[in-house]
């Protein structure tokens, strides 16, 4: 039986809540409503209002109180309702959550997970389609992860809740209803590693989240042109699993990185900068970024064109092969 990403998250949360009664959830509308995307559906009914907390409407309060709960021995999982609404919590995330282990010289762990539905392409109004990952990836002390399939969702949410580091957990909302099989018995990969989703020899295509299925389609299309594209799902956006990326590009000699977030100071630039430094002599073409443009997210009537998609990624691949 195949499971949607949103349900896989729900199942994953349920399972860690069953295993560890210190796990609790805090967020706006996550209780009776089950969250606007229903990721927490039924959990308040089964675990009660003390463990699935309908928060007052304040994101600083959500993350700040989660920090306090973690200090008191709990493992809180916060939900931020949409990408664009995480910013009121930025002070707690950047000055407190990310830095507390360091401040306390390793004495205090803050195992807080911050779940955020991210990304565009759903025809939404402003603030509901953004990709804020770079803000978090630039902040040392946070782990940033994003699943791309039901299996990854199930594994990663469980691993994130178990992590002793704070984890920003980015859910590709465009693909919440994408289904896949889940193996619930397999030992999940440790948090922090990338995954080769489709092997290939001629070019490495790195992406994450909602763009992973697109990247697989890109690879299939490129294969028709006789180009063998290796697709890597970052999974961990910070820290970045250099080893997997380097090993691939060393073989292929070509790199394209794709994400929805704006280009400037985005993750694509980071990966490109790392690769060109490590593999200067291996690269046969410049490493190319295919990203959202350096504008605010446009009105939804324009998002189809604004977002990086199949064609732009394929064109980048073509361009790579012109070198």
């Amino acid at each position, binding site marked *: 039986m195949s499971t949607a990403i949103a349900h896989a998250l729900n199942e994953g949360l349920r399972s860690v809540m069953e295993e560890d009664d210190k796990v609790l959830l805090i967020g706006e509308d996550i*209780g009776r409503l089950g969250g606007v995307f229903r990721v927490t559906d039924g959990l308040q009914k089964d675990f009660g209002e003390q463990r699935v907390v309908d928060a007052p*409407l304040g994101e600083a309060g959500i993350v700040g109180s989660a920090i306090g709960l973690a200090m008191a021995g709990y493992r809180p999982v916060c939900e931020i309702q949409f990408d664009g*609404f995480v910013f009121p919590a930025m002070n707690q995330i950047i000055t407190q959550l990310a830095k507390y282990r360091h401040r306390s010289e390793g004495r205090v762990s803050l195992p807080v997970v911050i779940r955020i539905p991210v990304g565009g392409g759903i025809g939404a109004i402003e603030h509901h389609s953004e990709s804020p990952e770079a803000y978090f990836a630039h902040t040392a002390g946070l782990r940033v992860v994003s699943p791309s399939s039901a299996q990854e969702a199930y594994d990663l949410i469980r691993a994130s809740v178990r992590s002793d580091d704070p984890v920003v957990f980015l859910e590709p909302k465009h693909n919440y209803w994408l289904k896949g099989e889940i193996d619930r018995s397999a030992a999940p990969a440790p948090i922090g590693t990338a995954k080769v989703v489709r092997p290939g020899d001629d070019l490495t295509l790195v992406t994450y989240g909602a763009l992973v299925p697109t990247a697989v389609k890109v690879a299939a299309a490129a294969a028709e042109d006789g180009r063998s594209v290796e697709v890597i799902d970052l999974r961990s956006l910070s820290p970045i699993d250099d080893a997997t990326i380097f090993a691939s590009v060393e073989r292929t000699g070509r790199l394209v990185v794709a994400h929805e977030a704006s280009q400037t100071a985005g993750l694509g630039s980071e990966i490109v900068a790392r690769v060109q430094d490590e593999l200067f002599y291996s690269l046969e073409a410049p490493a190319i970024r295919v990203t959202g*443009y350096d504008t605010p997210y446009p009105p939804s009537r324009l998002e*189809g*064109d604004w977002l990086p998609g199949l*064609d732009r990624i394929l064109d980048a691949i073509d361009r790579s092969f012109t070198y």
Partner: protein
Amino acid sequence: MTDDLFSLLSPDGVLSDAANASVDLRGMFSDMVMSRRVDTEAIALQRQGELGLWPSMLGQEAAQVGAGRALNPRDVAFPTYREHGVAWCRGVDPVSLLGLFRGTTLGGWDPTANNFNLYTLVIGAQTLHAVGYAMGIVRDGDVGTGDPERDRAVLVFLGDGALSEGETNEAFVWAAAQNLPIVFFCQNNQWAISAPYSVQSRVPVAQRAQGFGFRGVRVDGNDVVASHAVTVEALEQARAGNGPTLIEAFTYRRNPHTTSDDDGRYREGAMTDDWTTLDPIERLRTYLTTIGTDEDFFAEVASQETELSERLRAGCRALPDPEPASSFLHTYAEMPADLERQMNDHLEYVAAGEADPA
């Protein structure tokens, strides 16, 4: 929680003697009916797939029209995303309210044309903009002069949920400490999406103001006459230099949060039904009928409604798609070179018709 509500027009349509005799009740009635019609049509357009989403104001017409009509033209309003009735009173073309929800724009109107700012979707953020604007009024010297052509104030809208955001409370701090010409108009519709007001607070909204040292007033938000009266008074105080007021208009969100919401998951229909019997329009209709208002008046309003409906339906479909270049053009006052390069790339894609993502 309803004991201490100021009211002038009772639920069964009886007008208190204390009501200001010169108030334009017909105008209020018409505004409420017309803005409800905007709401109803928008919901229909959403069902037909013409809008992605619509946040309904059903049940909140009295609060909004009462407040909206209290504004002078020079006063400035800062709405949330639900103030369709205030927009109506300010003279904003209701068709332009639809663009944001159709995805053709993130704004849709010129905020300076009617002194009605853009909708703000980030809860509470507009309260600080309103504070800043009020600071501007003070610096312009347009407060407390006694000259009715000069004194101005700001009216900022917020929901009950917004009371929990830090920014809203900072707005209270600034407004109080600087005694600004600002009125906070909170429609306590008792819900923030699925969260009943009890999630936010155990005491009435208006009480919050006391803690910051300014006036808080509770009014029956389904009573347009009372909502209007308290807002007129609060705005006068503000313009006169007597500082801020927090108005709590106690009302009820009768529809789901937006057309995407499923309120059956978190509330019983019964309470919504109760509030339906407290309908603000019916209340005023009863009163107007009681005092023998001509049938022609109601017929005239009805015909304006029909006209409006048609205009909305046609206008919505005619809303132009934004230019592909528009986001690039409006990010900076002058376009940076790299962004221009990005724009040109983008326009080439669009021209080639191959930009749609997989």
